[in-house]
């Protein structure tokens, strides 16, 4: 698959939009230190997750024993993760905090510790499905830390894409049970609800 398909270009366009999604006032130097806290920590976690997913999909497509359909999905989802990682990294840049560097070495990512890119399709689908579930949980946990309205919106758009990728992978794997079941809701939602309501 070309790296410059119409869809990937559109994704890059959205990534650019995400990169510019923050109000101009945020780039003022005096506000930088105030922004470099829980919000940027949340962004960093999500960026690392996207980078790891991009690498896993990419290596799986290159080295795995995949059929044509799976290979195409892996290539496409690698591009999606790249776009999301780029958008979130640009947002972090705008908050005047350096985003994490991207690595092409799976050993650099804790979540890829047991990853075998040359595995069977069944094993790769199981591994990457777990990665998607982890990413969905990460987005849901971290969204409460994303104070900027545009970041909250972008995170929801990204997580929704992960939910759809999860369904695609489960259908490809012919998983038993509901293909739309998501990880259990983050407990931090309940916690923050109680804090917000003062109860």
């Amino acid at each position, binding site marked *: 698959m070309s790296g410059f398909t119409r869809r990937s270009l559109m994704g890059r366009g959205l990534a650019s939009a995400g990169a510019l999604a923050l109000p101009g006032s945020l780039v003022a130097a005096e506000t930088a230190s105030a922004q470099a806290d829980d919000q940027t920590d949340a962004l960093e976690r999500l960026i690392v997750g996207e980078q790891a997913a991009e690498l896993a999909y990419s290596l799986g497509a290159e080295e795995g024993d995949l059929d044509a359909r799976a290979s195409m999905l892996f290539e496409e989802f690698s591009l999606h993760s790249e*776009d999301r990682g780029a*958008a979130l990294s640009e947002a972090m840049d705008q908050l005047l905090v350096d985003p994490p560097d991207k690595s092409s070495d799976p050993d650099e990512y804790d979540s890829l510790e047991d990853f075998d890119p040359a595995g069977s399709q069944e094993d790769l689908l199981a591994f990457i499905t777990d990665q998607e579930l982890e990413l969905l949980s990460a987005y*849901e946990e971290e969204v409460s830390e994303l104070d900027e309205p545009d970041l909250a919106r972008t995170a929801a758009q990204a997580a929704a894409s992960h939910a759809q990728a999860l369904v695609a992978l489960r259908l490809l794997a012919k998983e038993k049970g509901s293909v739309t079941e998501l990880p259990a809701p983050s407990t931090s939602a309940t916690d923050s609800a109680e804090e917000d309501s003062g109860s």
Partner: protein
Amino acid sequence: MSGQQNVPRITRRRMVVASGAAIGAPLVLAACGSDSEEEERSESNDPDLLNAVLAQHLAVLDAAGALRDAEDVALDAADLLTTKREDSVGQLEAFVAEADGEATTEPAEAAQAESEVEAIALQLEDSIEASLEVIGNLSAAAYRQAVHRFITEDAAALAALRSVTGGEIAPDAFVFGAPTSTEDGG
């Protein structure tokens, strides 16, 4: 408070405009540097914003509950979606009450399509887009987190239904509702 009043029907054309706005508006904000996002976040806005999502969920519940005959994947997705939306309707009603508002009982306008499965899919696209429009402006992190969850649930169900209708299951890195490739004629 009427969901119909708060949540005008989102047409395909409006989706195009909304997608453009989602891309373009932040550029304007970044260029001007004078618009305070914080001003848009106010507890007083929460009831209307939450009702906008609630109206969509009521419409999704109607559409999903009407599905009788379809492939197993679609039936399973509709069953789980119905359970999720029954829960989310109750949760949103509680949120609106907590925010000193009155929960709407009016569903958003029903999507029309040739088949029940396609109708649910269109309804989900509307629901996702409406939820994305409000999520950033909800004042409480708990509200934003709940709506975030609802958006991912809608997106997962939409993907399963697309596998039945023949659409691309996961077409975009960032979900707007309808696939971006069909929104601009691409």
